């Protein structure tokens, strides 16, 4: 029950903050919004890569599917009598996001199934392949409904502006809350079991196949919504925003934060969004530093900067001292 209050407090905080950010100029607002998108993407990828132990390199593909399907829905609605302001805009955005989440989840289902037979590096390559297939398909789709361009292939797709601060961080809070609660539920322990020892989990009656697919579907759903928000914020999407380099960027956030640690991943998403902006002057060294960091981190501290182990141990201790929560 306690976590429900946390959710309400966090949402109230987001709402309060959204009333108070008017003084920010466009540049800072944009960085803030990117932090929000990256938190959504990284936390949801963490479910697949961190908690379930699968290695997906295709998260940007799901994000792209979401961004495009949300944009199609909202463009259709706004050219058929729906407005983009106030409550009407929120309704349009909500409908678009839900549909984008479902379509991305379908894509997740399609990627999740091959993952049943694949492990580690093979899975990484297959998800990367799916990412590229999705990108190539988007690049080749271009159609008109009633004189309005949809998708637009390589030219890109102009999208109405609907995403606000409150929406982005509201969704981010909900995504974090859902994934944390899922993982800490009795049911969610299945994801961790699949990661820790697949054979033992299977022997204990955990349906590993289903858990892997579920991780992909839920992760893709959240990534799709993140993509939808992203598209309706920058108002212009093209296939190049969703290459596997974007996927790698999200993977780096998950790894740096510590696979399987939601707080760590959130911190990493914030740091890795701000850092490039702060390092603008030495931009040409930025990615070199990133890649070196990745190599050194893997050699010196493979559990990530903020370490899963310490956080996991802390949770265990808390649970042990409070047996009531252990039964829920």
């Amino acid at each position: 029950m306690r976590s429900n209050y946390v959710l309400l407090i966090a949402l109230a905080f987001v709402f309060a903050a959204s009333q108070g950010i008017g003084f920010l100029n466009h540049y800072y607002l944009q960085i803030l919004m990117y932090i929000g998108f990256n938190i959504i993407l990284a936390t949801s990828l963490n479910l697949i890569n961190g908690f379930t132990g699968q290695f997906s390199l295709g998260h940007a593909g799901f994000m792209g599917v979401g961004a495009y399907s949300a944009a199609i829905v909202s463009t259709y609605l706004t050219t058929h009598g729906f407005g983009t302001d106030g409550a009407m805009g929120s309704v349009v955005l909500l409908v678009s996001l839900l549909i984008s989440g479902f379509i991305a989840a379908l894509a997740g289902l399609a990627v999740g199934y091959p993952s049943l037979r694949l492990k580690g590096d093979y899975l990484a390559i297959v998800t990367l392949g799916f990412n590229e297939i999705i990108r190539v398909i988007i690049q080749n789709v271009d159609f008109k409904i009633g004189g309005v361009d949809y998708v637009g292939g390589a030219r890109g797709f102009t999208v109405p502006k609907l995403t606000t601060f409150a929406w982005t961080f509201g969704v981010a809070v909900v995504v974090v809350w859902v994934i944390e609660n899922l993982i800490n539920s009795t049911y969610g322990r299945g994801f961790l079991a699949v990661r820790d020892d697949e054979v033992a989990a299977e022997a204990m009656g955990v349906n590993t196949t289903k858990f892997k697919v579920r991780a992909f579907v839920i992760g893709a759903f959240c990534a799709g919504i993140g993509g939808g928000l992203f598209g309706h914020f920058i108002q212009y999407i093209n296939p190049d925003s969703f290459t596997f380099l974007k996927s790698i960027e999200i993977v780096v956030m998950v790894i740096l934060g510590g696979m399987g640690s939601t707080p760590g991943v959130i911190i990493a998403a914030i740091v890795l969004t701000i850092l490039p902006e702060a390092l603008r002057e030495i931009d040409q060294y930025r990615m070199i530093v990133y890649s070196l960091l990745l190599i050194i981190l893997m050699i010196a501290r493979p559990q990530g900067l903020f370490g899963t182990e310490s956080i996991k141990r802390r949770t265990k201790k808390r649970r042990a001292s409070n047996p009531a929560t252990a039964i829920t």
Partner: protein
Amino acid sequence: MNQILQQLVNGISLGAIYALIALGYTMIYGVLRFINFAHGDVFMVGAFMGYYAATWVSSIAPIGTVPAAILVFLISMTICAVLGAAIEFLAYRPLRNRPKLTVLITAIGVSLFLEYVGQHPAVFGPDPKGFPSIISSRPIIQSTLLTLNVVQVVVIGVSLMLMFVLRFVVMRTRIGTAMRAVSYNQQAASLMGINISLVITFTFAVGSALAAAGGILYASQYPSIDPLMGIMPGLKAFVAAVLGGIGNIPGAALGGFIIGIVETFAAGTFLSTYRDAIVFAILIGILIFKPSGLLGKKEIEKV
């Protein structure tokens, strides 16, 4: 219809290059059981080393002659062999016996590192460079049915030669026997007195040298090189290695030719804009229906 022969020749010469890169993937997978993501970038470095070597060679000898071309190949292949061994020593060796995922992430890190160091203006620079014609592109056969360039003949010839040399090294020499032993059972090989580290270093050096040769051949055929040129050929060569059965040397060669031919034919039809997607669709198909590849052996997982 009269395009078929031409497309086939183009496909084989592209496939020969994929095959060379795929051999590196497959050999490294054979001894270390992991995918060296950075292999495509070693291929890129090979092309750039060829570029600089050609510039240097042209200052002492006329370029476009056979000895000059051989010199360019030797310089680039040697540098990349050292680079490959260095990558193994610095990035992968500390990670032996660690979870596969850790090694995989490191490999992605190495790949990004090579790409972005290459893009730095003080190294290769981000802009594409024109590759000097160290192999002449004069046509040998020119007819309505088929145009065959010297480049294409050299690409196919050099690739096949290198594949046979590799086959000979792996099957007939001491170090090759050691490689096969390590690939079969690392622990047992080490008990038999084989220096595992040496074998792994050697494998990386050979694989990287082959990638470098592939890089020069690729750049001779498509003479524009940039630091990100290795990504797509690298991924496609990986698909080729999986298609043939990863860890299997003839399989990698077969897979390379198949991928090259399929891609070229797709590019010649209405599917041309989908050609990258088709290669990945092949990968997904093969992993779902026959994960061991066309020539690979099925592995049984032991608990």
